[in-house]
């Protein structure tokens, strides 16, 4: 693996770009590993990287049924923020944000993290009260977030319609300036390259069909399309298919899988600063570095593994976008797609141990897993290596649905997480 640097760029410019090597090998699975991670998205690859780097566990395989980063890592709208209401969530997402800020340097790979700000619009009195409560709670937790008047919101984002007779009047907004976006593919590629450089095997096109448990109940390994792979520790990081996989280990999960859609417009010149979200009308938008407007909304109403959603939702979202930003009413949309997100009843993730010895799970990120990638990966690696929770992921247990100690972001944020 060639280390990326200005000197390497110059050297390769002079020698006809012949000095670059493959970024990671496409590994054939061995018969056994210390740790098997199911799912080569940002979360799984990141966990493999931190296992190798921080815990010295390098005999690790990341097993992926499709191609690397082809699930929700490659399908999301790349929004990164940490302005969550509850202390537990604020700590987790702010930990992720801390890691995002140094990630390109850490991985020697440009993940294009951009602190362009995330602004959430308040359209009614309830929104105003709720977002101001968020701003105060965030400040108490040391999380950056501030309240803007509608004029300040317009100043931050000129395409915004703040006229008094708008269909969705803007009464104010909450702005997290430290929030932003990153290049989603680069996150998966950067972690894959850095993990492979430390000896992690990345196995693609290899569906895991079942988790195998021994006579004592502990994990023995995973059955895959290419045979049994033994491991005393298995971490499932399989997003929308987590419950299907966990069923094979005899663990029923409090998860439901929904389609989540997104779409992009034709590329245009830079015209839209940062990310703007409207939770009340289920629409959010940013502009990618290529110039496309990236638009997302809430999930479809029914559970599905189809990786498609219905057109009514897209229509609803675009109707809202055109009302909030009238200048985009004649933009042409280039493409739309869907992913399968696993949603928990309290809209907070499940991250940690399971009733099965040696089986760990990282799931339930619902519609907002991308922003958590480094934080989830980092704390999952800790939990897998030590067999115990990290201080930050400790509240996000599977057991909270039995004890009732929920982290109810569903009530706090309701949508568009």
């Amino acid at each position, binding site marked *: 693996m060639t280390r990326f640097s200005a000197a390497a760029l110059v050297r390769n410019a002079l020698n006809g770009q012949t000095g670059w090597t493959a970024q990671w090998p496409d590994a054939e699975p061995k018969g056994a590993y210390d740790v098997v991670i199911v799912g080569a998205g940002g979360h799984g690859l990141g966990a493999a990287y931190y296992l190798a780097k921080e815990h010295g566990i390098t005999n690790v395989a990341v097993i992926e049924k499709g191609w690397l980063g082809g699930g929700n890592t490659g399908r999301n709208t790349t929004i990164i923020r940490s302005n969550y209401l509850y202390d537990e969530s604020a700590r987790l997402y702010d930990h992720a944000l801390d890691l995002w800020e140094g990630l390109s340097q850490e991985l020697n790979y440009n993940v294009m993290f951009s602190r362009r700000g995330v602004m959430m619009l308040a359209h009614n009195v309830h929104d105003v009260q709720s977002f101001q409560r968020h701003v105060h709670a965030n400040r108490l937790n040391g999380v950056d977030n501030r309240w803007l008047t509608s004029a300040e919101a317009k100043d931050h984002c000129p395409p915004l319609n703040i006229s008094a007779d708008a269909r969705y009047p803007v009464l104010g907004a909450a702005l997290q300036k430290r929030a932003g976006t990153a290049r989603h593919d680069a996150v998966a590629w950067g972690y894959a390259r850095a993990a492979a450089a430390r000896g992690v095997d990345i196995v693609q096109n290899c569906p895991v069909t079942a988790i195998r448990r021994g006579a004592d109940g502990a994990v023995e390994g995973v059955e895959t399309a290419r045979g049994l792979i033994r491991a005393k520790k298995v971490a499932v990081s399989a997003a929308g*298919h987590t*419950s*299907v996989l966990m069923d094979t280990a005899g663990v*029923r*999960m*409090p*998860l*439901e*899988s929904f389609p989540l859609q997104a779409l992009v417009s034709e590329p245009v010149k830079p015209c839209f600063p940062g990310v703007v979200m409207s939770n009340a009308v289920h629409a959010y938008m940013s502009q990618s570095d290529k110039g496309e407007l990236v638009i997302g909304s809430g999930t479809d*109403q*029914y*559970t*599905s*593994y*189809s990786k*498609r959603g*219905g*057109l*009514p939702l897209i229509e609803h979202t675009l109707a809202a976008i055109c009302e909030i930003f009238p200048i985009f009413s004649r933009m042409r949309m280039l493409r739309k797609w869907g992913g399968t997100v696993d949603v928990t*009843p309290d809209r907070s993730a499940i991250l940690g141990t399971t009733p099965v010895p040696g089986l760990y799970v990282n799931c339930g990120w619902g519609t907002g897993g991308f922003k958590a990638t480094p934080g989830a990966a980092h704390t999952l690696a800790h939990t897998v290596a030590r067999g115990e929770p990290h201080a930050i992921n400790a509240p996000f247990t599977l057991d909270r*649905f*039995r*004890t*009732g100690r929920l982290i109810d972001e569903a009530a706090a944020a309701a949508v568009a997480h």
Partner: protein
Amino acid sequence: MLLIHCPYCDETLPEMEFAYAGEAHVARPVDPSRTTDEEWRDHLFVRSNTRGPHAERWRHVHGCARFFNAVRDTVTDRVLATYPAGSPRPDLPGKDTP
């Protein structure tokens, strides 16, 4: 877009007429005071999340406003059958295939 047949109105109509209402045939515990924490967890929070034919509740909100059940394949999104609330799940060929 889903096309769903309302068993009461006897019409096949677009998804926008209907509201999804979660998994069907989830029975409430008979004796709440004797129900354990594990049973409450399973009743309140754990769902089958089936990949394949899935029995689920729908409500014809913009029509007769009544609840009914449907079996829908969650991989293809095809609605395989609809039936009135309270009726048992119909036996469909291959309904247990994952």
